[in-house]
Structure formats: structure tokens, C-alpha cells
């Protein structure tokens, strides 16, 4: 299964990859259905709807029922992919995610679309920079934040193959395809090391991964050897990779999320309990002002320059 074509030169909207993958999976597995809350277009599921009209359930603008219907469909033997804007499928329906999906431990795939600050100018009501913190509390809910179109496709396939609840965060922000070996594989719970390094480790996911790779290149030119880890799975974490990161003596995490309770918080919990080293968590401080996503990334230092600065400062804190 190849990834969808780039939306503009060299850059991809991962929703295209999600849509193409789910259509291909549905061709092969009649149990796969999609559930949407008036979110066909924003989930890029128009093609799915055309091909499998009887297998798309649109509940209207009703996120609590959206998530609950997913649980019911799983009870009826379906493999539902429940897809809506990440801010609403999580925050609006959080108790349904808790009780109906996670605590009930059912085979439902939740797809949080247009996550982070993709809807930048629309403001914090439409930002989803709290979703990972909320969902991370449900210990059996797998959380995946793919970084590029290939990984999005692989994450969707892995979610379909796994018998249990999964949340996949799909971004609409343009990202490049990451360089990785031709035989690369994706496994839930396994991180990938994209750049090796020994002075510090940058752990990122989602839209921040390619920025972390760029920062590592900048640092390399200065003689600083920064490892870059793509921690696509936030739950369960890849503890071995985190342990190895701690051995570099400095860790900087980067995510399109609040600095409270997301990837950085999760890694900090592991690091503090095992091998405490200087850490820096990059993300958004909380509700952010209006601006495009690209503006907000730059404004809060979630770019090549900001990441490189954070690495230098964290290395300086090494004992």
C-alpha cells in the first residue's frame, strides 16, 4: 500500500494517507466501518462514503453518541474507525472514551483529526493540545501520533490489526516524508531512532519530528551530536529507547501539545523514576493566542531554531 500523493511539492497532509489506508483496509475486511459526526469532509472520508455508503455511520453533530456508537458497533462485531476533530472526539466525549471505550476495553479505533493547533486562527476551542494528557490516563488505550504519511498508513494498519482500543492522532499540517530505511517497520509501542547521536536526545512525535531532524543537522554542524527519536506511540512508551536516551545525559522533548501531561510529561515520569537527567519539555504553555499553526510553532519555539537552542541549554545543565 503506497502513501497518498503529496498535497504540495514534497509535503503531505496525513489525512490523505489515513483516508487511502482505511479504504484499502475496508476493501479487504468487511467488518471495518467508519463513524463520523458530520465530519466526512474534514476526515477526508468522501471516498470511503462513495465506496461503502452502508458502512459509514454519520450520527450528526453529537460527539458523545459518536464515540458510544463506536462501542456499540464493536459489540456487534464491527471494527469501527470513529473519526472527528481531535478537540471534540476527546474533550466533548471524554467520559464516553473512558467508560464506553477504554474501561469497557472494546475494539474501537478513535481517530483524532486535525489535532494540535491545525485550526490555529480558530482559537483554543478548536485546538487540541490537551488530548494526549487526557487520554494518557486510560492505561489500556493505545495512543499513536504518526509523524508522516508512511507512518500514518502504518499506524492505521496496526490499529486495525490490534484487538482493542486505539487512538490515532492525525494531523492536517503539511509534513515531509521522513528519511528512513526501506525495510522500516511500524509497531505499536516501538520508537524509531532517525538520527543517531550521543550528546543529547531529542524525542519528538507528529509534526515536530521533521523539525527535530532539522535541529539535529544544525547542531551537528556545531559539533553537537544529537540523537533524534520519533516516539510515535505515547502509550505504551518505548521504555528501552527512553533508557538509552537518558544515557546521552540530556533529553529534549518536542510535541504539538501542551507542555502539561503529554509526550514530555510521559517521558519525564519514566526518566525521573529510572535515570534522572536534565530534561526540557517543548510544547505550548496552555491556551495560545490566535495565529496560524506555522505562526504558533515559531512563536513558541517549536521549530529548528527553538529546538536547537533547547538542546544547547539542556546539555549545559549536565553535571
Amino acid at each position, binding site marked *: 500500500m503506497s502513501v497518498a500523493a503529496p498535497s504540495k511539492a514534497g509535503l503531505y497532509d496525513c489525512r490523505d494517507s489515513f483516508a487511502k489506508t482505511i479504504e484499502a483496509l475496508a476493501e479487504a475486511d468487511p467488518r471495518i466501518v467508519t463513524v463520523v459526526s458530520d465530519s466526512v469532509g474534514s476526515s477526508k472520508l468522501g471516498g470511503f462514503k462513495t465506496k461503502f455508503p452502508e458502512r459509514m*455511520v454519520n450520527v450528526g453533530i453529537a460527539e458523545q453518541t459518536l464515540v458510544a*456508537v463506536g462501542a*456499540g458497533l464493536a459489540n*456487534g462485531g464491527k471494527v469501527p474507525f470513529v473519526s472527528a476533530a481531535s478537540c471534540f472526539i476527546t474533550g466533548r466525549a471524554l467520559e*464516553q472514551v473512558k467508560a464506553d471505550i477504554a474501561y469497557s476495553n472494546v475494539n474501537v479505533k478513535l481517530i483524532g483529526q486535525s489535532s494540535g493547533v491545525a485550526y490555529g486562527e480558530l482559537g483554543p476551542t478548536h485546538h487540541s493540545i490537551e488530548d494526549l494528557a487526557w487520554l494518557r490516563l486510560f492505561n489500556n488505550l493505545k495512543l499513536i501520533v504518526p509523524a508522516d504519511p508512511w507512518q500514518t498508513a502504518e499506524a492505521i494498519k496496526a490499529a486495525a490489526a490490534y484487538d482493542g482500543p486505539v487512538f490515532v492522532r492525525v494531523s492536517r499540517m503539511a509534513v515531509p516524508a521522513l528519511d528512513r530505511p526501506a525495510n522500516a517497520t511500524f509497531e505499536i509501542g516501538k520508537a524509531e531512532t532517525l538520527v543517531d547521536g550521543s550528546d543529547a536526545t531529542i524525542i519528538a512525535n507528529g509534526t515536530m519530528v521533521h523539525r527535530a531532524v532539522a535541529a539535529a543537522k544544525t547542531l551537528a554542524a556545531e559539533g553537537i551530536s544529537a540523537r533524534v527519536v520519533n516516539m510515535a506511540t505515547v502509550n505504551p512508551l518505548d521504555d528501552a529507547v527512553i533508557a538509552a536516551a537518558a544515557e546521552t545525559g540530556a533529553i529534549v522533548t518536542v510535541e504539538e501539545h501542551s507542555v502539561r501531561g503529554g509526550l514530555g510529561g510521559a517521558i519525564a515520569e519514566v526518566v525521573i523514576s529510572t535515570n534522572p537527567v536534565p530534561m526540557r519539555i517543548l510544547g505550548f504553555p496552555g491556551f495560545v493566542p490566535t495565529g496560524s499553526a506555522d505562526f504558533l510553532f515559531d512563536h513558541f519555539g517549536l521549530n529548528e531554531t527553538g529546538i536547537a537552542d533547547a538542546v544547547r541549554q539542556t546539555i549545559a545543565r549536565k553535571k
Partner: protein
Amino acid sequence: MPSPATPLTTDLVGEIAAQALWIRRRSFQMVYEAQQGHPGGDFSATDVLATLYFGVMRYDPKNPRDPKRDRFVMSKGHCTGAFYSVLARAGYFPEADLSSYMEPLSKLNGHPNRNYLPGVETNTGPLGHGLPVALGIAIAGQIDNAEFRTFVLTGDGELQEGSNWEAALNAGHRKLENLTLIIDRNRLQQGARTEETASLDPLDEKWRAFGWHVENVDGHDHAQLLEVLSKSPKGREKPLCVIANTFKGKGVSFMHDNVAWHHGVPTKEQYEQAMRELV
């Protein structure tokens, strides 16, 4: 301690009545021994539960996830005294397990967990969750043109949760004739009467306006319940809402229609009096 068991009779309505009596006695014993529970709602729901499990639904307790089974979703998940009693009586797990109700590490949590107990379809407890999940089950059946029916029991105070009305809208829109909602209309919520809190009447008109077929019944009359619940849904082309008019604490004089018994627990004297009345 008196035995809750009572002999079965041969006719169906009589059998349901006997099972209902057993469930009332056993669930009250559970609440008495645990000194926790929701006995008022257990008793208002008992006759609906007994009718469903012993007169209406198709299920095999030895194959609890049989894809062809009729589903029952206990949306009023706090009324586990009655729910666990009926599941045990139906054969999903040994009746002896009921003695562990709410004990430390028991499978019989205060609210049902499908991963611990066979026969539980979805984990409930927070209100307003059952109908939307049941909607999803019914949609799966509709997609597959399957024969199974989906039943869900809600409280009436619970209908103050907006999630129910999202699901109501969808079920009506989809003309889900395989879905049956039973409302335990005892008119009492935790602290007061529903009509003094956030009134629900005219409840039947609300459901009709959402595209449902509505039946009003005496929720303690097994023959009436059996008639409306066992009728084939084929060709109705609407989901069915059965408003089961009930009384909280039904069956015991001092609990009857008494809000104090939402989660009241009996003293030894009250327990013994209840057992003398429940015969």
C-alpha cells in the same frame, strides 16, 4: 438468613413472577449484607428484568458473546443488585458469587464490568451511556440485516442527560426497529421527584416526536410487559420505547415510592420485615 429461592411455576407469566420475587429477595439480601447498593431502583426495575430474561430475550449463558444473541444494556448501572441477580439466575455465573457483592476485589463491582462478568455488554455507571451504546449495537445489526434485538433499560431521571437525546434522534432517523428502550419510570431520582427537578412529562410525546413508537405499561405487570416486549419488531419501522410505569421500592411497604431508598440500606429489622413481605 431466609433462603431467597422460591419454587417455579409452569406458566410463563407465573414463572416470570416467581423469578422476580427471587430477584427482589436475593438483591435485597445483597444490599443488606454489603450495606451498600441501590435497592429502590433494584425493585422498580426487577419486573422488567425478569420479563426480559425469562420471557423475551434469546441468549445462551454458556456462549455469552454469541453474535446472534439478543443484547441487553443496563444503562442504570447502579442497580446491580437486581442486574447481577438476574444474570446469575439466568445462568451466566454461579448464584453463590452474589455473596461477594461489592466485597474487596469482587467481580461484582457496584457498577457492572463486562470484562469481569459474562452477560454484561458494556460498562455502565455514569448515566446516559447505555442508550447511545445500544444504538451502536442496533446499527451493527441493521448493517448486517441480523435477527438479534437490542434492549436497553434506563432510569427516568437519567433521561436528563443530553446524550440520550442525541441517541434518540439517531435511532428515530434510522428507523431502528431492532432497538427497544425501556424506561424505568419510577418518577424518583436520587434526591427528589423527577417532575420537581427537571420535569420529563409529557414523556411519551417527547419520544414520539423523536420518531419512536411508544407503549405505556404498568412496569410491574408481567403480562403487559411480556406482550409489548415479545411482539416482533418486524415492519414497525421505528424503534420502540416502553415507558414502564413503576414504583421505587416496589414490593416492600416501607420502601414503596420512597426517595430515601434510592441508596438506602436496611437495618436487621427492616431486612427481616422486607423478607416477610416478599413472599
